[in-house]
């Protein structure tokens, strides 16, 4: 009985997701068509100018290392801080040895 309800609810969730994700009559995320080129112009700018301005054919690397370089510095700092914190918390403390 419980298993039947579980499978039925899973089926229901799958149906809802299929309905929502359908581009014809489901939810629309943002404006469709060519409106996004005006509203989200940075996307279009990166796609059209990225290779010429930064040189890498991988646009994500162009954005991460050039346009959003400060973000990457922060990420590297977060990684360093996380490892320093892990080592500082996990190392043997004074009076810890039995």
């Amino acid at each position, binding site marked *: 009985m419980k298993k039947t309800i579980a499978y039925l609810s899973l089926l229901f969730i799958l149906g809802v997701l299929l309905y929502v994700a359908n581009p014809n009559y489901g939810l629309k995320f943002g404006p469709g068509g060519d409106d996004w080129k005006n509203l989200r112009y940075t996307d279009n700018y990166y796609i059209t100018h990225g290779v010429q*301005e930064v040189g*890498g054919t991988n646009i994500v*690397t162009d954005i991460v290392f050039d346009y959003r*370089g400060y973000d990457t510095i922060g990420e*590297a700092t977060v*990684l*360093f801080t996380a490892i320093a914190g*892990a080592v500082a918390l*996990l190392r043997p403390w004074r009076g810890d040895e039995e």
Partner: protein
Amino acid sequence: MRPRCGTDMGLIVKTSARAIIPLIGIFGAYIVAHGHLTPGGGFQGGATIAGAGILFLVAFGLNEMRKHYNKHLYSALEGLGGLVFLGAAMLGIGTAFFYNTLWHNGPIFNGKPGTLLSAGFLPIMNLAVGLKVFTGLVSALVAIAMYRRWKS
């Protein structure tokens, strides 16, 4: 029988790891080196190479890892990666921080887009970040394995 602290795993796992670890390392190095051309980059490739190191730690045990892991070398390499990243960003300080001056008017790394020696400081930064992530993740996992609090 429960596994004891610092011991290795069985023969099958060790033999498989011996075969797989170089392949993972080569794949990660490819991801790092082609970071400006194909999907991936410094972070992803560094994490992949660190996966090879973690596989070594899991398969061969902590005692074997202690022989191959040099704390001073790894911390020095991580600091070097961060400094090279910042230095590559500083190259174009005449215009702006993170200005890709090597690509626009530099002597090297100015090939056609899509070739390996192109894209200015992007390959340098990818190598630096890959080195930093690899050494950092391996150091973190070795620290977690070495300083564990529970008794086996």
